[in-house]
């Protein structure tokens, strides 16, 4: 299987219609949307949304924390779907999607785990509360990491894809069980630090939605970039083999 991929310098413009040209415009789309909405989010988070009566200014980190969590979970759901699709169809593209989403999911989940304590410390005086959602994210983070480490240990791509797919499926199905157990465990060890989930005033809700949108754009942008890297890597692999 010969390719001319290495004749073209990486990053050179390619005519529209060639494989790879389309994703580039989609990358631009997501990237631009992210660049636009992020400052909007920041502005809204600091200026538009009201300050929380109890928690003060520190509560604003909520607008980063919650969207990160949402995307972290979404990314893992994509890993799950990609894993099942790969095992069902055998098409490597699904594995690429799963691998990309896992790597990006780790980033968002790490953000959740960092913003959580940053929020907790000024508001409740402790870095870590065994809040069931935060605890579940810790577990999710660990499962993601084991997924990525596993991939690093299997050199042959198709075997790697199969193993990763099995772990991706098991890991995702585990998440609701993890959440349940974290909740029950916490109810037996109540701490004084409870995250109120009362009704949000309209302005906060809107800001939150903008946050979710921003992070979704960012996720899609990162996915597009990462998938491209994956495709290029595969091309290099093929070229090396056919030499």
């Amino acid at each position, binding site marked *: 299987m010969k390719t001319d991929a290495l004749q073209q310098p990486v990053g050179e413009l390619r005519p529209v219609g060639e494989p790879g040209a389309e994703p580039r415009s989609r990358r631009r789309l997501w990237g631009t949307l992210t660049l636009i909405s992020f400052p909007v989010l920041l502005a809204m988070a600091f200026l538009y949304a009201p300050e929380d009566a109890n928690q003060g200014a520190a509560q604003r980190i909520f607008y980063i924390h919650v969207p990160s969590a949402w995307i972290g979970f979404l990314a893992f759901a994509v890993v799950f779907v990609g894993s099942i699709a790969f095992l069902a169809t055998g098409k490597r593209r699904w594995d690429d999607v799963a691998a990309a989403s896992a790597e990006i999911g780790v980033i968002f989940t790490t953000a959740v785990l960092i913003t959580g304590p940053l929020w907790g410390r000024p508001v409740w005086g402790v870095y870590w509360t065994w809040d069931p959602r935060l605890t579940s994210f810790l577990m999710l983070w*660990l499962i993601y990491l*084991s997924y990525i480490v596993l991939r690093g240990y*299997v050199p042959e791509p198709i075997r790697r894809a199969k193993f990763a797919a099995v772990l991706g499926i098991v890991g995702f199905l585990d998440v609701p*069980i993890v959440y349940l*157990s974290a909740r*029950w465990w916490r109810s037996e060890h109540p701490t004084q630090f409870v995250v109120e989930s009362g009704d949000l005033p309209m302005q906060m809700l809107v800001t939150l939605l903008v946050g979710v949108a921003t992070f979704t754009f960012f996720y899609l942008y990162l996915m597009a970039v990462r998938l491209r890297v994956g495709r290029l890597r595969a091309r290099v692999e093929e070229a090396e083999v056919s030499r």
Partner: protein
Amino acid sequence: MSVLAPALTIAGKDLRLEMKTRDVVASVGLFVLLVVVTASFAFPTGGEGREGVAAGVLWMAFLFAALLGMGRSMAIEKEDACLEGLLVSPAPREAVFLGKLFTNLGFTFAVELVILPLFVILLQLEPGGGALLLVLSAFLGTLGLVTVGTLFAAMAVNTRGREAILPLLVMPVSIPVMVAAVKVSEAGFTGTWSGGTTSWLLLMVGYDALFLLVALATFQHVTEE
């Protein structure tokens, strides 16, 4: 071709192998014993709430036993391509999984059977009526652990890291069943069965059932070249 017969044949072979070499029981058994004895030094013999900590330590010991045993049992199959020998036979892939599952369960239960009474004695616990809970938690918790572990062990031995990466794969995913097992064991040590205890037991049953199905469905993908 039935599934149970070849599974039992495989488990029987492992039993015979273990009786000859005492490979796994010796190394793992000793290690777990050391964990338990060390823990009993670290504990104050009196004191409220020590049942909770005891349950935690107990399950750490069981986890280590299971991980070491499962790793070793799969590594044996990897030697001389014995696993291929199982895969070229008419035994369905599910039977091969079940066979190794039975082996790993048997081994881990054997270790637990020795460790648990020892633990109760050394830490001067008084379970009384809670003994049933102890048995239930040991059974259900081990089943969950070993189901996921057997599936992952089959993957682990086919990676660069071999069975050394097994703990890395098993531990995150098995946290819920471990937490549940600790909770029920704690209830067993104190002899109290509350509503919460029932919930934890149900969680374990759900976990075991779910992942047994997933493992049976995905094992062929793990063993196929």
